[in-house]
């Protein structure tokens, strides 16, 4: 029920993002979803790709600081209040969201949101018990 995500440390400078994208392009890796968290000096680029292991290897070999993290992909009804319905359940159960971002493609009539939790397994339990659909990684890598 977990999705593999790659995080990449980037300095906040021209060309930093471009060089990562070039490496992925040359390795024929497709990006399924991404988000970029930034501060004044540095950023963390988070990616879900079609081949996590290969992408990690390529980036690592080229001297980038990368790490592998697990996130959760949840289907969200694509209507007003859709995301709120998930967050309401999580808040009630005292589960903290570290960060989230939207998946680019839809799953049927639903949008997909990527969540990072500090207590990932608890969060998945809560979501499943409350009738939400948590997507397996394979679904996302090859949507």
């Amino acid at each position, binding site marked *: 029920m977990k999705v593999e995500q790659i995080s990449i440390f980037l*300095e906040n400078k021209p060309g930093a993002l471009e060089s990562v994208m070039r490496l992925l392009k040359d390795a024929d890796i497709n990006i399924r979803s991404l988000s970029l968290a930034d501060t004044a000096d*540095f950023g*963390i680029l988070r990616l879900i790709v079609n081949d996590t292991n290969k992408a990690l290897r390529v980036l690592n070999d080229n001297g980038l600081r990368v790490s592998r*993290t697990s996130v959760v992909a949840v289907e969200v009804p694509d209507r007003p209040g859709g995301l709120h319905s998930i967050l309401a359940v999580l808040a009630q159960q005292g589960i903290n969201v570290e*960060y989230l971002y939207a998946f680019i493609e839809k799953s049927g009539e639903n949008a997909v949101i990527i969540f990072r939790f500090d207590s990932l397994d608890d969060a998945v339990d809560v979501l499943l018990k409350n009738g939400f659909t948590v997507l397996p990684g394979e679904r996302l890598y090859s949507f």
Partner: protein
Amino acid sequence: MIYNEDFETLPREVLETLQLKRLQQVAQRVYHTVGFYKKTFDKAGVQPDDIKTLPDIKRLPFTTKQDLRDNYPFGLFAAPMSSVVRLHASSGTTGRAIVVGYTKRDIDTWSELMARCFVAAGLTKNDIIHNAYGYGLFTGGLGAHYGAEKLGASVIPMSGGNTKRQIMILQDFGPTAICCTPSYALNLAERGSAMGVDMRALKLRVGIFGAEPWSEKMRDEIENKMNLAALNIYGLSEVMGPGVSMECMEGRYGMHVFEDHFIVEVINPETGETLPYGEEGELVFTTITKEAFPLVRYRTRDISRLIAEPCRCGRSHIRMDRVTGRSDDMLIIRGVNVFPSQIEAVLIGVTGLEPHYQLIVDRVGTMDTLEVQVEVSEQAFANADEVRFLQNLEKALAKDLKDYLGVTAKIKLVEPKSLQRFEGKASRVIDKRKM
């Protein structure tokens, strides 16, 4: 004006006789009371009795900063703690700091030498001295303070920082003299002007500036902006603190070394050979009156030269030129002495940071800035991919640098391998400052 005319104008032969007598006493005392000196003297094959003339000082071994660190905290004290009335220390993590002690008589001597400095700057008991050197473990604040009181002047124990308040006091209390680092003087001048204060109209007529290298160009700038006479003072905690040497108002060129208390030499930093007057090299000091923390041939790593020509002020004491640089990699940032190795120790201490780092020193306006660029380690990034984790790391590092070294630094995390790798002795410092 001269504070202690008897000693400051001694004819050279008499002065040198006095120096020899005191040197012989100090050599005996350290040899018999401090294990370190017995060891180094024996190793150099020299006994205290071998000092028969002043040039015999060359036979004594040097003492280095590393020796001081190795004997942290009190290993080089030559007096029992019951006689020590004050301790000061340089910044540094445990074992990397240097601790110095003073007996009551040492404090009296230091106070007198600082009083001599003030008088050399044309001050009397009628002056009000604004002392903006830091009070605390740093020797600057209390050293200048005691000297001002010894002279009988009115001292404002301002310490560093809180610039707005300093400017208010400069206006309201009307001090006639100020002590601080030259860069802080410029900072005060600029902040004051920005606040709409006419910094040239203050009552200040003299500034006594030291604790960092500066230039004649900076002197002109400070004098123009603050309408005062800017004078150079020199000192270092190991030798005593501020007041080891001081420029006189009459000469305003070179700082008189108080030779009845210190013997100064200039050596070739590579070979250790003593250089003749006038040649540039590393300053070496021997303290000949200190009781608690005597030092024999201490290598300061400060580069300067000695000026033997008599000064028009009438002092017979030799002068040393401005310090023009260092023979090691010590940085002076806003008056705080920092070694790259100390910064490295802090980096290693903060979990997850491997010591690939670079220091960028610059001067923005009048203030020195230090940026520490550190590569993000694999461990640091593997554990968490969250921005706040890395920001906490930056904060922890900045805090440790402030706590241990007293220096404010901006931490910048950089990508791995983005810093140049060095072969052998790393040169990790980029100093963009122009004096």
